[in-house]
């Protein structure tokens, strides 16, 4: 039962470099700790060659020139670990985090069970090479090891650089040559073993078990079993995530949209790459912007409760649900740009988190005789652009509400209906359309024998030439939103006179059909619209 292990050296550094690709070939160091106890937490190989080591104080470390310094970001490490798991899930669903010896250990190692994968992906060497390539696509420079024993694969990945494949039965021989430091033994154990002259895994594994228990207790015995490559626990597979997240903390708050979009673009690219590995697309994107807080208000506040409330992060969350799952980051970036332009955060941004809800990729068979319809992805961008032009809530499909209330409709999101959906259009006669005035024009109506005889509206007075009505409607009388009105269809001279260049001209001949109504509650007349 072979196992493959993926280990990312200098994980904290690589988690940062992954979202900042410009740091890839530069010496990078990570600070951690509150001042004045800030120390170097991790450095990459290039920085190590310059002489910087983990554990140095900030003052010592900053004496070295040419090194890019970043602060440790737990959120970036969490997303980097999730990306690492994604790499393994491309091979097999039986993936587990490596055994953590200490609770402070980094989640830089993941193990996958390769049982039954040879027929699908080839030999262990090929699988190891593929894993290294996939990890490289996600932004990791990882070590890969394949061995028959779980812990042997883990130790080999952490101890040997590059790709290591250990044939069955040679685990002890190969791992035994590794120095004890790569086993991540607690410092007090390591010091004692060094005093005994024990330098490698093999030497530690060869010590008598009873003597180890006498001197180190059960903890020492556990470490020896690890050094011997003995499996302690069965593999417990992790669940496949239902959402994918990428986040980044920004050291200096971003105030402008353009630099913010650069960061969003990087994160979206990472998300799309991860989803593509699972042949998935993005169905919904949720962007959470952590905003900078002004502490002045906190200082002014006298109440301790309000102070504790103010310490909560200020978040600006935007969610975009896509009718068609998207695979391209550029398309999502444009949508997010338009959305953020319409809904800008009111403070500078200090951190970004993008959560993608995956959806199955949309496959569509095109044909020569399909009806004309816009491209779904371009349509979304077009709708977002139109919305930014005309305002929110003014773009969509009209939908009639299930009520007799006049003008009861709502605008819903425009999404192309299924092509199979067909409507029967039986009536062939043209219908007279009503053009609505929004809001209705208030009017003054002179009645004769209970019927409208003259209408005054917008400063114009018109005799009513012909009329039809009344059409009385009433509804919702049991609630506060009830309505009752008498509708009349009237013919009269046009209310809004035709305007010629530089003058207003009234055409005495031109008449039009209007719909007017009397609101029975308000006891007022209105012109609702004009037939056309």
């Amino acid at each position, binding site marked *: 039962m072979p196992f493959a292990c993926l280990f990312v050296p200098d994980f904290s550094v690589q988690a940062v470099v992954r979202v900042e690709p410009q740091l890839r070939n530069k010496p990078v160091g990570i600070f951690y700790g509150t001042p004045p106890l800030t120390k170097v937490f991790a450095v990459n190989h290039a920085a190590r060659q310059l002489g910087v080591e983990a554990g140095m104080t900030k003052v010592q470390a900053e004496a070295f020139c040419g090194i890019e310094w970043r602060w440790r970001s737990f959120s970036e490490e969490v997303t980097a670990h999730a990306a690492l798991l994604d790499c393994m899930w491309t091979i097999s669903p039986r993936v587990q985090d490596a055994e953590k010896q200490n609770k402070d250990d980094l989640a830089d190692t993941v193990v996958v069970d390769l049982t039954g994968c040879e027929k699908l992906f080839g030999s262990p060497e090929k699988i190891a090479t593929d894993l290294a390539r996939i990890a490289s696509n996600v932004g990791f420079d990882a070590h890969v090891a394949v061995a028959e024993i779980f812990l042997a694969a883990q130790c080999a990945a952490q101890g040997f650089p590059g790709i290591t494949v250990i044939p069955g039965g040679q685990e002890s021989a190969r791992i035994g040559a590794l120095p004890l430091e790569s086993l991540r033994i607690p410092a007090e154990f390591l010091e004692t073993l060094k005093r005994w002259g024990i330098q490698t895994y093999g030497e530690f594994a060869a010590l008598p078990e009873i003597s180890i228990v006498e001197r180190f207790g059960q903890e020492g015995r556990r470490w020896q079993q690890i050094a011997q490559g003995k499996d302690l626990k069965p593999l417990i597979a992790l669940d496949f995530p239902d959402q994918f997240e990428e986040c980044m903390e920004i050291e200096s708050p971003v*105030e402008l949209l353009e630099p913010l979009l650069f960061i969003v673009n990087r994160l979206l690219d990472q998300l799309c790459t991860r989803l593509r590995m699972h042949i998935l697309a993005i169905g919904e994107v949720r962007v959470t912007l952590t905003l900078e807080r002004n502490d002045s208000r906190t200082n002014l506040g006298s109440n301790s409760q309000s102070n504790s409330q103010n310490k*909560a992060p200020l978040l600006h969350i935007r969610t975009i649900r896509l009718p068609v799952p998207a695979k391209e980051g550029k398309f999502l970036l444009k949508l997010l740009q338009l959305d953020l332009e319409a809904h800008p955060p009111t403070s500078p941004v200090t951190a970004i988190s993008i959560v993608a809800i995956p959806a199955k990729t949309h496959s569509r068979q095109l044909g020569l005789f399909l009806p004309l319809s816009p491209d779904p992805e371009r349509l979304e961008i077009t709708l977002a652009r139109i919305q930014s032009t005309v305002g*929110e809530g*003014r773009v969509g499909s009209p939908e009639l509400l299930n009520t007799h209330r006049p003008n009861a409709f709502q605008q819903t999101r*425009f999404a*192309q209906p299924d092509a199979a959906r067909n409507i029967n259009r039986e009536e062939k006669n043209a*219908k007279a359309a009503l*053009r609505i005035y929004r809001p209705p024009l208030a009017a003054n109506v002179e009645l004769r024998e209970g019927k409208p005889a003259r209408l005054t509206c917008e400063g114009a007075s018109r005799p009513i030439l012909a009329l039809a009505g009344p059409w009385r409607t009433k509804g919702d009388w049991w609630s506060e939103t009830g309505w009752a009105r008498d509708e009349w269809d009237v013919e009269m001279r046009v209310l809004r006179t035709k305007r010629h*260049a530089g003058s207003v001209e009234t055409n005495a001949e031109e008449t039009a059909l209007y719909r007017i109504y009397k609101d029975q509650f308000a006891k007022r007349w209105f012109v609702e619209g004009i037939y056309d």
Partner: protein
Amino acid sequence: MASIAATFEKLKNGEVGRGMRGFRGHVAAELQPSGVAELDAVLGGGFPRGSLVELCGPATSGRTGLAFSLLAQATSRQEACAFVDVSDSLDPVSLAAAGVDLPRLLWVRCGKTPGKRPAAESSFFDSPEEKEHTQKFLQQADGKKIQGQFWTHPRDQIRGVEKVIPSLLRVKPEGRESARIHVVKKRIEKKQTETKQEILRRHTSSRSNNLPGTEFFQTAGMRDRMAPAKPWKRLEQALKTTDLLLHGGGWGVIVVDLADISWVDARRINLSVWFRFRRELENTKTILLLLGEESCAKSCASLVLRCERREESWSRAARDAASGASTLQGFSVQGEVMRSRSQSQPSDCARWQTQTMNR
């Protein structure tokens, strides 16, 4: 001589022109039935696809009903259509009564100026948890807003300057003004006020003599409404929206409703806009339908149809003698071809009957 003869032959056959397709290509354009059999018979099958069509006419001339009929035809073919509503006057009930498949219609309502909306307002995409977060944020926000640089283009920052500068120039310390100037200023103001009152009296007498409820006109809202509102912002939005829709492609019919816009204002739209639209429409199956009082796209329109309501159709109103109530059943419309590049000739007419929806 031979080359001249060849060129002459090409000119004669209409093979010279953009794309070397010439005028002939337009003649053979695919036609979309309008849904009115009488009109389709005159137009040789319907409206030409991939072209700009104008429906013009006065109020209550049946142009909107005809546009709805065309939309109903297109949506029944499962095509996606768009309605750019410049004056926000579309009635969805009439649309549904005309047989338009509403989910296939994109309705763009122009007129509202999109501003920076407070984050706590309801949103198209907002979920309850977002609202909660944004509410919380607004409560806690300390007013540290990024002024003028977060998401705003410098061009937008100068908006409103023309209103601010005169007020800045006008505000002067009163002590510096001499008494003489002050008196002169007062006189001028008084004169101006009198002139305004005179205009107002004249206006009232000309408009509302012998009318009940004259005080109704004294409200500020009515005075605002009486002032002719400039439709430039709405027109700009409509044209930009149309441009975006045409660029996106894939639409069966795009209706741009300029019916409530004065033709004087509509004709102020630069002709190059219509040329650009026509260029974008070429080699597509989209019909760009313009509704308006008068034709404004000039030669860019492949078909200009003028609609008129025939008066004798009003007599169809049925009168119920017993109750004294009556109903409007419809009116007849006459469509006249004013300009056409297809089979129909100018002055060809069709007459059809429209029906009001059953209430």
